[in-house]
């Protein structure tokens, strides 16, 4: 597959818009459809597409396994940290009212940070599962 010129060129054209679309879905989720989960899957799909075309070793130079092993628990920790921060600011767990100067801005900050946590965990988990499948030789 890695010598198929059509797939290689099409992938080169589609990769950057795909990653940009993931960012759009991530940060525009407040106003349109989408959010951390969908954006994470789209970003992971971009990395997986690159891996399918160029092979496992080059994509693992780009997104190394060690990075994924930090990102998988990192997203959950970001999420928990937002909850604990609001806890210490005098609210309930995951109640974002006092994260900023007023309640509406606090809510927007809280949702923004929480969605980033979801994005980090979902995207890294998808890529890690792909690596785990692709890295095994045929038995």
């Amino acid at each position, binding site marked *: 597959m890695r010598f198929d010129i059509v797939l290689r060129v099409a992938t080169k054209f589609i990769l950057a818009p795909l990653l940009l679309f993931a960012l759009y*879905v991530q940060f525009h*989720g*407040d*106003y*349109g*459809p*989408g*959010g*951390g*989960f*969908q954006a994470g*899957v*789209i970003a*992971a*799909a971009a990395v*997986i597409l690159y891996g*399918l075309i160029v092979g496992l070793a080059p994509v693992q130079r780009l997104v190394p396994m060690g990075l994924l092993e930090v990102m*998988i*628990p990192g*997203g*959950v920790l970001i*999420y*928990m940290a937002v*909850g604990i921060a609001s806890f210490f600011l005098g609210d309930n*767990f*995951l109640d*974002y009212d006092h994260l900023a100067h007023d*309640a*509406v*801005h606090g*809510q*927007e900050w*809280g*949702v923004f940070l*929480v*969605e980033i*946590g*979801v994005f980090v*965990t*979902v995207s*890294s*988990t*998808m890529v*890690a*599962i*792909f690596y*785990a*499948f*692709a*890295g*095994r030789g*045929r*038995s």
Partner: protein
Amino acid sequence: MIETSVTIVILLMLGAVTIGIVRVRGLFAAVVLLGIYSFLMATLFIVLDAVDVAMTEAAVGAGVSTVFFLGALYLTDTVEAPPVHGQFMPLVVALVTAGALVWGLSDLPEFGSPNQPIHQQGADYLARSMTDTGIPNVVTSVLASYRGFDTLGETTVVFTAGIGVLVLLRRRRNGKEGS
């Protein structure tokens, strides 16, 4: 009217694809049919105005999980093994499950009916979302703010799945004797 006919056409195609998945013996064709099934479901969700769910279904069901299925097929065989036991017991289990589901359907409120308790007595997020959170997309504000604890649980589920797959499928770094 046009919405109803589109829904009926999509449901018929879903039925045809499902029969195809059950009948086909080559697993490669089954994986492709599963991807088509997910795209049809995504289209159905769009007809039902559930854009967020449609996006998830198209990305996860049709995109990423197809790649995972193909990866699994690469590691195993691409033709389904012939059944070892008779097909009577699976038929009974399937019929009983389908019967229980249809029986449960009779208890659901009418489709799209505004008289359900969830539309009358639940918290009115549609009216509250803008003043509480300043987020116009109510799906996002419910997911990330009002029901943030549930989403934390879902993220933990994804995390657990990732850790589980890594533990099961990962090649050992040291010691080449691992299979």
